[in-house]
């Protein structure tokens, strides 16, 4: 399935689950898929910006879907125009619906979504740069980006949620 079809399918899955599709949620869900799901089919590059990891290319693809009439973007919300069926014959559908969505619970607000994305970014950045990776180093790194916006306990809880989600094979945490 080509990139745009996968993206459209994910948006459809979220819609079928009655999830409010904010721009930040789409950005972070796709970021989690890119980092954690094998053969995701996305080449998006995510960089750390004001509200956590963000991809220009993903934003451009959303614009393309809008031009194609598949979605509408109203303010910060993404609306699906066509009532497509989910193509649910692959593991990705199951990963999004059963593994990822419970992380972004319905009541998660903007800040929590931002924090979860930031925590995963920091984990991967420490890992990619060959630096010590554990709960403490992630908390310090998140504080480096976010200053005093989140306290240690809140970051620690977000870290636990992210790390619990991940198969042990994907993230290696130093003891």
């Amino acid at each position, binding site marked *: 399935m080509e990139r745009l079809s996968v993206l459209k399918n994910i948006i459809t899955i979220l819609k079928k689950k009655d999830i409010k599709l904010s721009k930040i949620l789409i950005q972070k869900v796709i970021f989690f898929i890119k980092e954690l799901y*094998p053969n995701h*089919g996305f*080449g998006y590059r995510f960089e750390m910006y*004001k*509200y956590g990891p963000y991809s220009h290319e993903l934003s451009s693809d959303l614009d*393309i879907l809008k*031009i194609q009439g598949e979605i509408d973007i109203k303010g*910060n919300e993404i609306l699906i125009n066509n009532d497509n069926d989910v193509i649910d014959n692959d593991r990705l559908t199951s990963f999004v619906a059963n593994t990822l969505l419970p992380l972004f619970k319905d009541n998660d607000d903007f800040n929590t979504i931002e924090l979860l994305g930031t925590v995963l970014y920091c984990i*991967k950045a420490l890992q990619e*740069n060959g630096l010590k990776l554990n709960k403490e180093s992630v908390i310090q790194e998140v504080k480096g980006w976010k200053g005093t916006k989140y306290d240690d306990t809140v970051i620690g809880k977000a870290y636990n949620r992210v790390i619990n989600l991940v198969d042990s094979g994907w993230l290696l945490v130093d003891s």
Partner: protein
Amino acid sequence: MSEDLLHKINLKHRMRDPLYGFIWLTQEELEIIDTPIFQRLRRISQLALTKYVYPSAEHSRFVHSLGVLQCATNIFLELVRNSEDLNKKDDLDILLKKLRFAALLHDIGHLAYSHASEQTLLGDTLKHEDVSKYIIQNYEPIKHVLLKCFNDATILNLISSLVAGKVIKEYDLLKKIISGVFDADRADYLIRDSYICGVKYGQFDVERFIGSFIVKNGQYCIRYEHLNAVELMVFARYQYNMQVPFHRTRQGYDIVLSKFIEKQKENIQTGIQKQKGEIVTIDYDTFVKFDDYYVFELIKKFAGEDNFAKILMRDKAKLHPVFDYTCNAENAYYKKLYEQFIKGLISEGLEENVSFFKTVKNVKIYDLLKISDEQNESDYKVLKDDKLIDLFEMSPVLFGNTNANEMIIYRVYVDDNCIGTAKKVLQDVIE
């Protein structure tokens, strides 16, 4: 301070450059430049087939890479001079060395003819930045120089993450200089490409722009007094994009080149082995030979039989952009016109990707909102009277245009034989 820092990094060699006069280099940088994989960049053109529009656009990614090294150095030195937060640090020379290596290597993974071939040959999941990252981490001659210079195994991860990856907060500043909105890469290609093409689109007040930044409370900010220089760079980029990479003739040749490469995919040896969307290995001997000349040899080989090759050889007329409208993204009229035109061509028996080629390009004029459009704010702050204020609050001209003018370019190109039919269809559709 600037002189001290430059003295500390021990600049020994220099090369002439039309924009900077001399570009000064360290011994280690020269060792990297002298590797076959870096020399390959001499044979990758900076602007692909833009030379079919602007004949002098013959410069390479090699000179651009050197230019980014110099421009990044200039931005860094000004940043240090402007920022009390920064100029007390005692490892500035090490930071500068890291920045310069990342700048020098930022384009090392470009494929032949860059963007025209990358989608086809790398697929959806890989980008040239991933190739750069792999080369920096694995190509022995580059690894050797970096490890010798820093004596720290994590340097390979750091330089590659500055080019294409996730950085830790400590290096965010360097990342912004290498690949932010107001980075050395964009600054150099705007002034270099416009200078060499001989166009005014892309020119801006680069000397003032370079000194426009300051670090305050750990953030990379814009100095209020320099806001106009930053705005001018953004406007210049928009004009440049419309007149150089998105130029309708250039875009027509991009389509032809992409289609040719797509057809010849099986005959092309890049040296890059992929598996499940990841690079497994690169055969460097093959990769070094995979340059613009390699692709053009292939074009020559098929010039007798392949229409795309004939167009690229200028032995057959270029594709004609019969339908060419740039309009506000919200404008339904042109979207409908475009759709009806395509339908009309098909009903006249014209086949897509044989007789006609369509392209829709979405352009956010200033592209700043995209940086953090989750809350419709800019990611950048302006420092005014010791306060950090959102860029859009300080620059209504950027904010206004970013919000109002999202545009779409609708283009349909047709083969030489079909111009008459296509023009008639367009006339019918318009009426």
